């Protein structure tokens, strides 16, 4: 009930006045008698009547107080919220992440969760509706709202766990989007772990009812694995592996790393409770194919005990640099092993369009950009008539005031305090985004159209301390990654479960065949590249075949949250309520002052009747 006019409650002040008036009421007349003992006998026989008399004496006051209470309530304009649809709607969100494979006494957490879901579903009424959401790496609706519980159970039985981490936040958000807002809907979240996003969501939305699955388990998992070629040493690899003990007991177990040709590493690893260790092993020799690392231990989750990695493929970027001399930039490009750089002091106008098309990235250092150029450009104080960026003068010693921290180009960059001797004052149109801004002019801008991507420097790095900062190679690498992401992505030979495999398709209408770790093939007709294959929920080695070329991509869990099976202890318990009021309640507000007024009249007449009865008694 809600009171819409609180000043109406001031009427309650009449209650003490009423009590005062009653206390001032005429006292009973005193009458002297000689046979009081006879009257006492009369009273003993008339106990009920006397009780009724006492009640009658006070009931009038009580009724008058009740009238004032009701009057105050009526004047405060009360209203109640009534649900139109009383049938409950439930959204079942079931975690299918790798952690649900954890075994407890021979039963996986997923099986436990299925039983819990079935049990909870038994509490639903015939008219209650439920839907099913898969809380996996790519949350999806498994079954829409239905009253058909058998159909739900069937779809529930078809659900399987993956080797990937769950995107719980996305799954819950998906479920929330189906809430009607009438306050009766609930989201039953069956999850085996806790992260801050779940806690935040359960706090945010009262409809979420988390159901904790599983007990804390000890587990050891590989949480990091990578391979890279040692710079300057051909056929030599560095193998990085990180192993973490999530249990409360120290453990010792063998680690084995193998290639197709044989075993590279075999050693005993000891980890204290909650300890993580990283190891780097060097490997010499031919190293084609897949490298496998495995820890041999009986623990809660086996999915994180084995990882795979393909040998890094070096696909070089073709970079065309037009400059009259830029020491720092040229030195940096020479250091990048994946860059094949061609340098020219001037723009070769005759072949310019071919150059732009053939090279992945074109860098113009203080050289005007020819008109109608299309491609990926890094422009350093390089202008053109058809550019959305134009020069407006010169700014001396501009001071950095802001930058786009969320931009992939500025990722890991802290330009605060960077000194720039001179910059060109520039302005960009609506198609440009300022990435780095000074108090006088934008310093770095980006521009993106269907056929052109460019990053624009409004200053010469040589006239700043940027090349002397760690940020310089990171910035240039970020720029290259943003300008030409395909080439870099294609280099990936091992990814995490749930992440897509990027397949570079050079020809239109090409059939891409992918063999999963389960040896099943997926064949997809790709109209235009690049193609992202997202069904990577199974850990293992995927074979990607495009036309006659084929390569391997290793997919690993490598997720600390999934490997940490102690999570359920931290899962926030919430009491379940049959009804909840959501923040966007779609309830009907009904004013009830009319009904209360009727009640007042009834009590008023009752009070009159009591007075009448009392007068009759006298």
């Amino acid at each position, binding site marked *: 009930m809600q009171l819409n006019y609180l000043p109406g409650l001031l009427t309650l002040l009449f209650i003490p006045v009423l009590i005062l008036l009653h206390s001032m009421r005429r*006292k009973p007349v*005193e009458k002297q008698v000689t046979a009081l003992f006879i009257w006492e006998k*009369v*009273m003993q026989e008339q106990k009920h009547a006397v009780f009724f008399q006492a009640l009658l*004496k006070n009931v009038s006051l009580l009724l008058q107080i009740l009238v004032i209470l009701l009057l105050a309530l009526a004047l405060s304009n009360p209203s109640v919220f009534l649900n139109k649809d009383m049938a409950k709607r439930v959204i079942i969100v079931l975690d299918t992440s790798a952690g649900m494979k954890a075994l407890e006494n021979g039963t996986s957490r997923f099986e436990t969760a299925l039983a819990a879901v079935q049990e909870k579903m038994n509490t639903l009424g015939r008219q209650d509706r439920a839907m099913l959401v898969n809380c996996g790496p790519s949350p999806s609706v498994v079954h829409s709202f239905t009253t058909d519980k058998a159909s739900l159970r069937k779809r529930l039985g078809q659900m399987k766990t993956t080797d990937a981490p769950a995107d719980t936040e996305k799954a819950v958000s998906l479920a929330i989007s189906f809430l009607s807002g009438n306050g009766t809907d609930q989201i039953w979240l069956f999850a085996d772990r806790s992260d801050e996003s779940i806690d935040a969501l359960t706090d945010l939305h009262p409809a979420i009812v988390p159901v904790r699955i599983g007990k804390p388990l000890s587990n050891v998992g590989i949480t990091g694995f990578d391979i890279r070629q040692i710079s300057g040493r051909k056929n030599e690899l560095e193998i990085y592996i990180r192993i973490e003990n999530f249990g409360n007991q120290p453990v010792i177990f063998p680690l084995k790393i193998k290639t197709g040709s044989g075993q590279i590493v075999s050693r005993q690893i000891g980890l204290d409770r909650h300890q993580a260790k990283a190891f780097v092993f060097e490997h010499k020799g031919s190293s084609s194919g897949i490298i496998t690392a495995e820890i041999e231990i009986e623990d809660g989750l086996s999915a994180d005990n084995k990882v795979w990695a393909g040998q890094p493929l070096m696909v070089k970027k073709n970079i065309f640099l037009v400059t009259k001399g830029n020491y720092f930039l040229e030195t940096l490009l020479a250091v990048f092993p994946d860059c094949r750089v061609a340098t020219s002091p001037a723009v070769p106008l005759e072949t310019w369009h071919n150059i732009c098309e053939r090279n992945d990235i074109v860098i113009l250092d203080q050289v005007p950009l020819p008109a109608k150029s299309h491609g990926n450009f890094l422009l350093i104080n390089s202008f053109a008539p058809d550019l959305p960026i134009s020069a407006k003068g010169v700014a001396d010693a501009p001071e950095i005031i802001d930058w786009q921290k969320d931009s992939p180009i500025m990722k890991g960059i802290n330009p605060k305090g960077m000194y720039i001797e001179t910059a060109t004052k520039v302005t960009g149109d609506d198609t440009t985004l300022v990435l780095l801004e000074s108090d006088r002019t934008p310093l770095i801008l980006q521009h993106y159209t269907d056929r052109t991507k460019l990053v624009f420097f409004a200053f010469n790095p040589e006239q700043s301390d940027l090349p002397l900062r760690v940020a310089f190679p990171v910035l240039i690498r970020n720029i290259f990654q943003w300008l030409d992401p395909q080439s870099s992505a294609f280099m990936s030979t091992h990814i995490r479960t749930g992440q897509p495999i990027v397949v570079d398709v050079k020809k239109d209408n090409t059939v891409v065949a992918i063999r999963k770790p389960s040896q099943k093939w997926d064949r997809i007709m790709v109209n235009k590249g690049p193609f992202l294959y997202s069904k990577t929920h199974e850990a293992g080695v995927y074979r990607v075949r495009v036309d006659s070329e084929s390569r391997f991509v290793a997919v690993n869990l490598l997720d600390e949250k999934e490997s940490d099976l102690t999570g359920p202890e931290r899962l926030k318990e919430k009491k379940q309520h049959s009804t909840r009021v959501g923040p966007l309640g779609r309830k009907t507000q009904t004013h009830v002052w009319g009904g209360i007024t009727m009640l007042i009249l009834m009590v008023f007449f009752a009070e009159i009747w009591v007075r009448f009865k009392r007068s009759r008694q*006298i």
Partner: protein
Amino acid sequence: MEPLLDESFLRQLQTIKTLAQKGVKGENAGIHRSMKSGSSMEFMDYRKYQPGDDIRYVDWNVYARTNRLFVKLFHAEKDQKLYIMMDASGSMATGNADKLTYVKKITAALGYLGLAGQDQVGITTFSDRIEQIKSPQRGKDVYLSLLDFLTGLNAKGQTDINAVLESFCAAGHQPGQVVVISDFLSPKGFKKGFRALAGSKFKLSVIQVVALDEIDPDFKGRLSLADVETGQQLSLQVNDRMKALYRQKMTAYLSDIRMFCQNRGIDYHLVDTSVPFTDFFLGYLGARQERNQ
């Protein structure tokens, strides 16, 4: 001061000659004829002298003629003691017609008749104890002092009939007639005292004086009833139903007193103060005469 008995009433009393009755125990000579032989002048018989007989009653003439000793036997005319015990507790001051005044009139009338009949008349007033005592005296000239005694009485205190009558019995009074006049409205009862008095040397007579509104209350509504003697209060809403129940209870209480007296041969009279005193008293005397005959 209003005279307790007016002249006309006294004249009426004098014409009634029913007070002297036979068979009352007593030692002093009076107008009541005793069955016991004694020293009055009315000769009854002779009998042989026995050792211990009063030698003054030996008929010496008969001895001279017969040489045998005979003593004269006479009707011993004994006097009677009349003890009037009147309730002077607080409750007696109530009633539309003051109960205490009514009781004073009864006492005065009884006293007058007793004195007129050569009885010794004593008055005892009581509440929850014996308050004042006027010792039994004989002679019509005592009447004025009796009236003075009555005039100075006030109603006060609580009532305890049992304690008072038991106390009276224990005081060693000479035998006689005891007339107890009270409203007998006491939660402590009366039976124990009546038993004590009736079981001893006294002839008990009871006159219950009540006010009409004590039998049939004329009030109702929300009242705080206060006991006139104890001050105890009782709040209640008096309605017709409760009044009817009160009347029923009061009637039962009065009947209980009457039955108790009847069963024990105790002379009992009930009067409410709305009845004119002369009407009541003449009726009382008539009833008493009938009873004695």
